[in-house]
Structures are given as C-alpha cells and as structure tokens.
C-alpha cells in the first residue's frame, strides 16, 4: 500500500470559452489511463491520483498552480496547458522543480523550441504538422497556384512559413500571402485580393485558409463563389462543433488532426465506443489528445520501476506507444511526439449533423519533415 502516485492536469477551466476543450482533454486523459490499466487505475500496484488545477487562462496563475502542484502537492508529472501562451509560461517551472511537464493540447512549435527544456514532453501536434500535412493533401505540383490567408501574428505567420517550406521543391507557387488582423470578421477585402492574384493563373488555383480563431473565413469566402474563377478552397479539418460549417464545401480536401472515424486501431475503436456510450457523442480532437497523453504517462510508468525524473526522461525519450491516432514516438531531440495526420475529403450526409471529413489516406509521421525545435541530447 504505497502512497498513490499523483498526476496534475493543469488546464484553463474558467475564464475563457476554451474551457470546454480543457474538459475534453481531461476526459480523454482519464480514459487513457483507464484503457492502459484495464480499468484498475493502478500502475505497479500504486493508485493513480489525478489533481486538477485551473490556470484561468492566465500565465501567472498557471505558473502558480503548476508550482503548487510540483512543490506542495508533490505530483510526479503534470499535464497541460490549453493555450500556447499560458503553456509557454509554464515551461520554466518544470525545469525549476525538475519534474516532467507533458504538453497537451497546446499546439505551438515553440513549446518544444529553444525556450523549452528537457523536462518538457509534448504529445499534442504542432503547427508544422498541420501545415505539412495540409501541403501534402494538396498534392502539390508545378500546376498548383496557392494564395494563403492567415491571421497577422506569430501563429499565423509561422504556419504559413511552414506551409511554404513544405511546398518547396514541389514546383507549386504561392502567388499571394494575405494576413488579416486577429479577430477579423469580414474577409471580403482579403478574398477580393486573393481572387485578383489567382484568377488569371493557369492550372489548379487554391486559396489556403489558416485561421485559428472564429470568423468562419471559409464559409464567407465560399459564399463569394470562388468557383466562378475556378478557385478551390482548402483548409485544415476542425473540431466537431465547427464541422457543420464544412457542409458548404463538399468535396474539399485537406488534412485533419483527428476525426473519430478516420484512424482504425483497437484503441480508437474502444475510445469511440466508450465515449459514445458514456457521453452520448463521439470523441473529438481534445479527447483523443488527452487520451494519447494518458496512454503516454501510463506507458512510461509501466516501463520502469524507478520513477525518478531522470530515469523517466530516459525512458520516455524515443518511447513509442499506441494511441487513438496510432503509434506515436517522442523524438529524443525535442521530445515532440511524432504522429500521423489524416488527409480527408468532405462528404455531406444529410443524416449527419456535421460534414464528414472522409479519410483519403493517413499521412504517416515519416512523410513529414517536422523541424527539430531544440536538442536535448547536447
């Protein structure tokens, strides 16, 4: 009867509408542990105790509660946080307390970049994966002309930069890069500019949309009927609540992080079944991500008896484990989990509330060239 092993989930649970995502992530994490322990919630005979901490989406609060988790609650591993800014603020705390921080579901590449440290692991995807997969889904060739639309800040610019890099050597050209201010709601002007840049081009003409916030640029641009100039729209897949808006673009192709029907593996089957049974709806991005994190923690703890942080780091570097998205691997250099993405094509079925991003093919981790953020091995 050892003490339970404590794990902290450090996410934003209040103060922003993103709190719903944190909750999905928590559900997924618990399901992950449940699956890995066959429902016993015990590893190596020790109970697992999960402690939830609310960052309130404020970096200072996040740092305080994470430090509290490591310092006062004495958790072994912390998992979090929801938004990139808040998570970035949390990174040094892990180093200070010399404990592992597993980043999920925040996406930014920089979380495994030079500012990060060797105590940080990341199961969530990053923007480079999104954009590389997106580029691959476009099947780039010399006849492809793309205009990109993104928000005018680091996230948007980095995303487009990754996309540009992914197209390099394929012969495809980017004819315009439009950046709109954050929280833009009217895309008419940007669309007109992109139409102007694309309309006279020969070959395939695509508008690539990479806007994280709301505003529904896809729907609004689609409403301007780009097809009259032979222009297609392409954008990444999205969480379920947003997918109904994709009904307006049947046949659109792109890449998605997760859609519950796409991966085919036993874990995902279990997840979909259990989730639907318990919550009446299929799992979404953050549930899958949370579960991947839960499975990673379980695997690491199961693989070794010595739960000293240094030993855990050693165990996890290069570790491969199964998730609802298939196998993931922590890259030893920057601790980013490499994973598959899914090339989809939108199918509209009137009996389904949302548009279905039907699987075209799985884009395997090794097809993508995800830049290494930092090298922990040095």
């Amino acid at each position, binding site marked *: 009867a050892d003490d339970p092993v404590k794990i902290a989930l450090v996410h934003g649970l*209040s103060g922003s509408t993103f709190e719903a995502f944190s909750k999905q992530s928590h559900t997924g994490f618990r399901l992950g542990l449940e699956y890995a322990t066959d429902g016993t919630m015990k590893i190596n005979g020790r109970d697992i105790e999960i402690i939830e901490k*609310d960052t*309130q989406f*404020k*970096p*200072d609060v996040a740092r305080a509660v994470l430090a*509290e988790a490591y310092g006062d609650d004495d958790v072994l591993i912390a998992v979090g946080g929801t938004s990139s800014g808040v998570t*970035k603020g949390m990174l040094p705390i892990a180093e200070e307390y010399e404990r592992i921080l597993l980043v999920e579901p925040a996406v930014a590449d920089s979380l495994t970049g030079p500012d990060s440290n060797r105590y940080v692991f990341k199961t969530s995807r990053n923007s480079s994966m999104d954009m590389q997969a997106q580029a691959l889904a476009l099947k780039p060739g010399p006849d492809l002309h793309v205009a990109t639309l993104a928000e005018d*800040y680091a996230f948007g610019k980095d995303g487009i930069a990754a996309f540009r890099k992914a197209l390099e050597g394929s012969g495809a050209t980017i004819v315009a890069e439009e950046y709109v201010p954050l929280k833009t709601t009217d895309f008419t002007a940007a669309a007109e500019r992109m139409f102007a840049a694309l309309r006279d081009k020969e070959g395939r003409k695509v508008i690539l949309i990479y806007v994280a916030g709301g505003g529904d640029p896809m729907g609004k641009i689609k409403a301007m009927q780009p097809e009259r100039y032979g222009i297609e729209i392409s954008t990444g897949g999205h969480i379920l609540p947003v997918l109904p808006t994709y009904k307006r673009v049947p046949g659109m192709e792109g890449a998605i992080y997760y859609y519950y029907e796409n991966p085919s593996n036993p874990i995902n089957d279990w997840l979909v079944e259990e989730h639907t049974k318990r919550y009446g709806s299929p799992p979404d991005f953050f549930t899958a991500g949370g579960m991947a994190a839960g499975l990673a923690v379980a695997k690491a703890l199961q693989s070794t008896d010595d739960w000293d942080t240094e030993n855990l780091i050693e165990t996890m570097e290069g570790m491969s484990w199964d998730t609802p998205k298939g196998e993931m691997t922590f890259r030893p250099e920057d601790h980013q989990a490499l994973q598959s993405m899914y090339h989809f094509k939108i199918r509209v079925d009137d009996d389904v509330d949302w548009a279905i991003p039907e699987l075209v093919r799985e884009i395997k981790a090794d097809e993508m060239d995800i830049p290494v953020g930092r090298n922990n091995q040095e």
Partner: protein
Amino acid sequence: MIVYAIIGVIGICLLFAPMLFPDVRSQEVAARICIFIVLVASYDLLIGYTGIVSFAHTMFFGLGAYGTAIALRQMGPGWDAVLLGGALGLLASLILAALIGLLSLRVKAIFFAMVTLAAASVMAVMASQFSDFTGGEDGIIYKVPKLFSPATKLLTDDDGKVLRIFGAKANGKMAAYYFVFFGSLILYFIMLRIVASPLGTVLEAIRENEMRAEALGYRVVLYRTAIFCIAALIAACAGILRALWLKYTGPETSLSFAIMIDILLMVVIGGMGTMTGAIIGATLMSLAQFYLKDLMEIASQATAGIPLLPDLLAPDRWLLWLGILFILLVYFFPAGIVGTLSKRGGH
C-alpha cells in the same frame, strides 16, 4: 480605525508571508498582491485623486515588464540587463505618457479615455506583431539574476544546507519575494508622500474644480500631464517587479485589457481617492481570484445532497459569483470599502 487595523494585518501578513504561508501558491498570491497594490495605487493617483480616466495604465505596466524581460532575454540574466531594460522601459513610459498627456489631456474626459484606449490597443498589437522580441501572443520566458534563482542559498546552516527561518527556506525565492515586497513598499511610500505633498492637494483641487484651480494660477494641463507621467513611471516600476518575479512576460500577464479591468475593480472595491483603498482592493480581489474557487469547491461538496445548489456552486462557475459579489459591492459600498468604513467611523 478599522481600516488601519485591516491595513496593519495585511501589512504584517505580506511582510512575513514566506514564513506564515510557505506554500507555493500563497507566495505567488502575496507577490501579486504587493505588485498590484502599487499598480492600483498609481492608477488611483489618476482616477481617484486627479479625476483622469485612462485605459492605458496597463500599457505602462507592460512597458516596464517588457523592457526588463527583453533585456534579460537578449543580454542574459544579469543586473546590468535589469537596469538597462528597466531604464528603457521607464524612459519609454515617460516619453509616451508626456506625449499623450500634453496632446490630449486638455480635452474632454471621455475623449481622453478613448485616446488612451486606442493607444493601449495599438501597443497590444505592436507587442503581438514584433514577435521576434516580444514572443507575440505567447510571451517570453527568461532567466533572472542568480540571486533570485530558487537554487541560491542565502543563508546556510552548518551542513551547508539552506537555513530555514520559521520553516521558510532562506533561498533565492525568498530573496525575490523580499525584493518585490520592499520594492513595492518604497513605491507605495513615494505615493503616500505625493498625495500628502502640496502637489497632492493641487491634484485634488483639479479634480474638484478644474476651472477654479486654473483661476488660482495653477497650470492644470501641466499638472495633469505631470501626474500622468508619475503614475506611468510607477506603473512601469511595478511592471519591472512583475517581470522579475514571474520570469515570464506576455500580453496576458502585463498588457491585456483584462488586467486593466482588474485594476479598475480593485480601485473601486477599495475606494477611490484613498491610498489605503488600493491595499484593500488589491488584496481582496487577488484572494478572490485565487481562492474563491477552492471555497466554492468546499461549498459545492458540502451541499452535494441539495438539488441545484451544487450546480450553481460548481467551482468552474466561480466567475459568476465574483460577478454577483461585485454587483453587490457596488450597491452596498458605493464609496468602496475604505470609503464606507471610514464614513461609518466618522459618525
């Protein structure tokens, strides 16, 4: 009288915070309270003492914080970086405050409020767009001088281990806390001095009757600009303390409109035009932000059997209760806590 007793208790709690509340979260809260007391008091110099409504106060706070943060990041964790970055932040605050003040403090109050709102939002956009320096939305992390690193041993016992003073480790963390504490204390005393000085009286006169102050021979625009600059400088100093304490600087911690609203709430809860109000307001608000949720968790569990109540008391709905609490405060304590208490004492 009650007011001074409360202030005394808060003061003592803050002074001995590392010993009284050794847990990590309390440390954070205590440091946050210190910094916000300064920030709120400096804002009160404007809104409470002089009657200037500005929405740009976090901009100056942010300039101090970002100045220090960027210097620490670019130059490495040394005191030279703190000095240089802090000085640059202060200088930028001063110049901006003087410009905004001289250009627009002569116009109507609501216009000035809009100008400051515009300036603040432009600053926020700039911070987001110059992401190479500022880290954009994600902010930047950096190391602070060695003295403040938790690994630093301030005092050691015979075994070379960190000495404990009443259970609190005398390490770099404690050094950082006392740096923040005494820094805030000094700034607070400076402000106390200002409001008790002839300048303070002139400011109140301007608030009460601008035209008459002018008729007595006071150049109102200059005085207003001066206090706007002073408040900006103090806010920037608070920003420097924040940057040093947090080791992270981003829009959410030092530039966002949410902080502006926090400051406004703190000023009002405490009581405008009273330096003591800043202490009470900042303390109460910060405690609510960090602990109301825990309290509700307990309440929610305690009422688990009763229908509906546990739902309403669900900890994630703590903001709902903060909002209701806030409305009630404005109803029943229109002059703020200090204003209401001291009026009662007076009768």
